[in-house]
């Protein structure tokens, strides 16, 4: 599970047998527990299943058919086509924006965090403890607490409605620095750095050519966590972009949702909301079985050391 060996004398196989209950055979009312687990599983899957069904319905069917039952006619492809044609493909423009924002944020934050984490893990210097403290403090202050101050700053510098305003504030990732510090400390032998120095490599060459390949699994984990974080972000882009062509998916869909309360006679575009929401979660949900291990491994390394 973990990216690094956990300090214990237990092997994977022993743990497997422990969880299989071999030997003891004592089962805490197995059936009741399984029903409980299945019910909770249904709870976690239910909204996503509903969204999938809802995306196949027209507006009237949405309110006239049972919530998990399909309508007589399946309008999935119609809804998809309408969504694609809406406003010259504005939805896909948002999709592209989300991909650009998330990729830029995840790549930048991963690199910046890796550099900082490497410095904290592998060097001794005068302000090291101070730097630790500053990272810790920012780790405990959620981004949302700073969103409005950052917006006021962005507004004063005339950067509202730019890619810059969405991406750059998110490049600072205290969790990333903390995580890379722990990860590099655990997985990167200092003697490799020393042998690099003996070979005459500069410190940055050592970081790029020796450290980066070794910590690649950790970099991937952080990239995924940062990517999901940026993809899901809402508050900061809500403040700093209003140009429809620059919105990320979460904000674009919100525009449609906000028409529900608007006091106009137009019917809110329910099929767009359903289909748009479905497509925005689809890649992540489909890839999740593959990504889960990598993400969990990272959370474990970062989380357990706290």
């Amino acid at each position: 599970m973990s990216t690094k060996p956990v300090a214990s004398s237990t092997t994977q196989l022993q743990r497997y047998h422990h969880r299989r209950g071999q030997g003891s055979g004592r089962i805490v009312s197995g059936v009741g527990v399984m029903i409980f687990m299945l019910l909770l599983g249904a709870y976690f899957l239910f909204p996503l299943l509903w969204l999938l069904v809802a995306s196949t319905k027209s507006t009237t069917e949405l309110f006239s058919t049972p919530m998990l039952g399909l309508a007589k006619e399946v309008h999935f492809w119609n809804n998809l086509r309408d969504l694609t044609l809406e406003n010259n493909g504005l939805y896909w423009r948002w999709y592209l924006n989300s991909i650009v924002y998330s990729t830029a944020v995840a790549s930048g934050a991963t690199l910046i965090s890796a550099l900082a984490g490497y410095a904290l893990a592998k060097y001794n210097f005068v302000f090291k403890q101070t730097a630790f403290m500053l990272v810790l403090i920012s780790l405990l202050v959620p981004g949302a607490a700073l969103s409005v101050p950052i917006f006021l700053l962005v507004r004063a510098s005339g950067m509202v409605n730019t890619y810059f305003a969405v991406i750059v504030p998110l490049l600072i990732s205290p969790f990333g620095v903390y995580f890379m510090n722990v990860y590099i400390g655990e997985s990167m032998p200092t003697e490799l750095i020393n042998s690099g120095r003996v070979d005459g490599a500069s410190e940055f060459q050592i970081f790029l050519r020796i450290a980066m390949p070794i910590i690649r699994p950790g970099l991937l984990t952080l990239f995924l966590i940062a990517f999901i974080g940026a993809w899901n972000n809402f508050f900061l882009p809500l403040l700093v972009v209003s140009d429809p062509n620059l919105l990320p998916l979460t904000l674009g869909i919100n525009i449609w949702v906000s028409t529900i309360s608007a006091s106009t006679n137009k019917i809110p575009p329910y099929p767009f909301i359903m289909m748009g929401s479905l497509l925005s979660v689809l890649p992540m949900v489909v890839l999740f079985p593959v990504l889960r291990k990598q993400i969990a491994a990272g959370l474990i390394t970062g989380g357990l050391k706290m």
Partner: protein
Amino acid sequence: MKRNRAVPYLMLSPFFLLYVVFFVYSLCYAFYLSLFASQAGETFFVGLQNYIQALHDKAFWSSIALVVAFALMQAVTILLVALVLALLLDSPAVKGKALFRLIYFLPYAVPGVIATIMWGFLYSPQLDPILKLVASLRGGKPVDLLNTRNLLYGILNIATWEWTGYNMTLYFAGLTALPLEIYDAAKIDGCSEIQTALRIKIPLLRSIIVFTSVLSMIGSLQLFNEPLLLGSLTTIPSSYTPNLYIYNMAFRFSNFHYSATLSFSLALITLAASLLFLFLTGVVRFRRPSPAMRSGSAP
């Protein structure tokens, strides 16, 4: 060696440059703005007048009281459910563990905005058979999770749906890190499964439980996305949560100076809560340079 001395500072500089701009300077700028007020198109210096107003602003303080209550309820709910799930997944009573771990963790990949939209629609009584069922149990009285009194529970459910699997993953990982010898010893002493869980597993997870709870409580103070989005489906007061109030103050009432005052106050309150936690528990520790690292031997 002289050249090396600058290297760690250079490596830290991109992070701390952004830190200074977006953490320190943005807060300073918000404070600067909060010292002014606008009236009839003119801006003038008012000193700490805005803070005196905030101190007496009932809407602001009741929004803080609401998120504090929410933070406590959310921490307890998620903690309990996640812990029970992690313990069950670590026991022999459950089959198909890998699949359950995947399903429970899945909502982590769903944006909070989408989760809120889905649940928001599911809460609307004309759509939801579960709410109808509950209503028939209560003698036909419909349950409206979107009315102002129940709204907080509706949001609590969304947060539980989103974050339980995340916390469960952390707890499960903590259980995986415990050596099995502990359980053998417990078995010899005649501990049942449940006793082992209560007396051994939970105490050993203590630090990670404290940490995740407090982090989720600090995060809850910032509650914003859910009430903002649900505001499209129902009526929500403009000062429901502190961040919603700050947002509306800037964007609906165009009072940037008072908005800056409130957001600076909220950031200070959050910072104070975080530091209090940091010093009270001492749970969070950075990896100090270990002797093994300094002598250059790898783990």
